[in-house]
């Protein structure tokens, strides 16, 4: 929101000045990159510890060209999607039950508030015992991790829809279902999207951990096998792919927010 107002202030800075500012912001990362390349090239740092940026680029190109990266990427994306689908559905369902009825809240809220304090990644050993070492524990880990941010945010969102507006609308002769579908749920949408952004972050984190347990494919598997062959360049590629996936997911939610929350003054272009 502050960014929007900043770019529309009348005393907007001219283009060359903004360019210079942008360069200044990039200066330190670029300098580090050059330093990194130089220190590996001059043999100050062993490639066993870390490869040079150019080596990472080469590894990235090789993995892409051989199709290996795409295969693992698809597997990882499949796991995240399946886990997210389950986690978001479960979180949404629980939040609707608890948010829309007092009895539902009594039944679910205390339990879920207790469970959410549990670090879900600590359940890995248990999940291996329960689900073996196939796809299930990996997807279950993502699902469990993503359900809670969705539940907490959507529940709070439903409960904090402007009571005065709901009261006014209740005088207009809507059925309870119409009131929920047209007023309460759209009102809770911003909170849901916030929850979704958290959930996406947790999803990648769960995937990183999940793919390091006996996986035979996926980005995490790529990194683990690279470790055995001391291929630090491939490990760095895996890290970068995780980072890019996280950024893309966040970007997608932002785009959804822009179109879904168009009624908010910050998004209205008039």
């Amino acid at each position: 929101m502050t960014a929007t107002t900043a770019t529309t202030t009348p005393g907007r800075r001219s283009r060359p000045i903004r360019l210079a500012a942008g360069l200044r912001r990039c200066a330190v990362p670029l300098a580090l990159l050059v330093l990194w390349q130089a220190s590996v090239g001059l043999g100050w740092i062993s490639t066993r510890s870390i490869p040079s940026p150019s080596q990472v680029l080469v590894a990235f190109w090789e993995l892409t060209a051989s199709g290996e990266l795409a295969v693992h990427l698809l597997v990882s994306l499949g796991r995240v999607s399946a886990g997210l689908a389950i986690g978001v559905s479960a979180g949404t369902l629980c939040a609707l039950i608890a948010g829309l009825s007092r009895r539902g809240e009594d039944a679910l809220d205390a339990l879920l508030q207790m469970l959410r304090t549990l670090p879900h990644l600590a359940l890995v050993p248990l999940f291996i015992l329960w689900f073996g070492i196939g796809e299930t524990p990996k997807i279950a880990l993502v699902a469990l991790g993503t359900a809670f941010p969705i539940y907490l945010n959507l529940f709070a969102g439903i409960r904090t829809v402007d009571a005065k507006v709901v009261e006014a609308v209740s005088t207009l002769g809507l059925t309870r279902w119409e009131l929920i579908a047209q007023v309460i749920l759209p009102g809770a949408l911003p909170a849901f999207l916030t929850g979704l952004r958290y959930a996406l972050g947790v999803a990648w984190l769960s995937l990183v951990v999940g793919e390091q347990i006996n996986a035979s494919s996926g980005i995490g598997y790529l990194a683990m096998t690279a470790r055995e062959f001391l291929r630090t360049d491939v490990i760095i590629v895996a890290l970068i792919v995780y980072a890019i996936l996280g950024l893309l997911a966040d970007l997608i939610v932002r785009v959804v927010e822009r179109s879904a929350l168009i009624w908010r003054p910050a998004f209205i272009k008039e």
Partner: protein
Amino acid sequence: MSHALPRVPASAPVVTVRGLVRNFGNGNVLDGLSLDLQPGSFTALLGRSGCGKSTLLRTLAKLDPAPEGTVRLPDARAVVFQEPRLVPWMRVLRNVTLGLRHPDAEARGLAALAEVGLSHRARAWPLTLSGGEAQRAALARALVREPRLLLLDEPFAALDALTRLRMQGLVETLWRAHAPAVLLVTHDVDEALLLADRAVVMANGTIAADIPIPLARPRRHGDPGFIALRSRLLAELGVDEEHLATREPQRADARTNSAKPGGYGLPAGAAAAPSL
């Protein structure tokens, strides 16, 4: 032409309230209140803060229960609150037609918006409206329901002085055109005298004074009749005009009754209840 007084119908009242009691734990906010509203009449409801007038309006809007007493209401009711209370994620027109079951709801909504002078904002998002525009949209949302009872809960209180004057004129025009029974809750004696043909003063959860306002329209603040009624209403509200000082209220606020000796007669649980 403008001397034609609003219809004073002989038909049955559109609202009938008998012996209405509402208890908030420490004292009755409504204490055996009875009130009739005639079809097409314009009634102003005045009273100090906490006298129960908002509770009465909320009861008539069916937002509050009526545990004791009888309340007879028409089906077609509409409420305009102090805040516009529009749904922010629906465009203005959708807000107006919300809950409307007619097949031509959209056309009716547009007509209502035209009547309040807001046609050009039909596609706007509510949060982009000015305070006056938003309140006019709320008025259109009430109007489109063709209410036989229009409840106005201090609808002009949050507006600036000029906007308020325009809104008062608009409400009077709409009332003349559609003839709902209007109950206007207000703190403003002048507003009551400008718009209403009856002023009801509440105190202690019941009606303390019921004063007809037989003034010709359009009304002006300086008219002798206006000034006389103004003094009378202010006196009923416990304001001494001569000294412009507020007298010690004769009728204690219903909600502070528990502080009076009589309050101790309540059962222990009730007396210990926190004051609202």
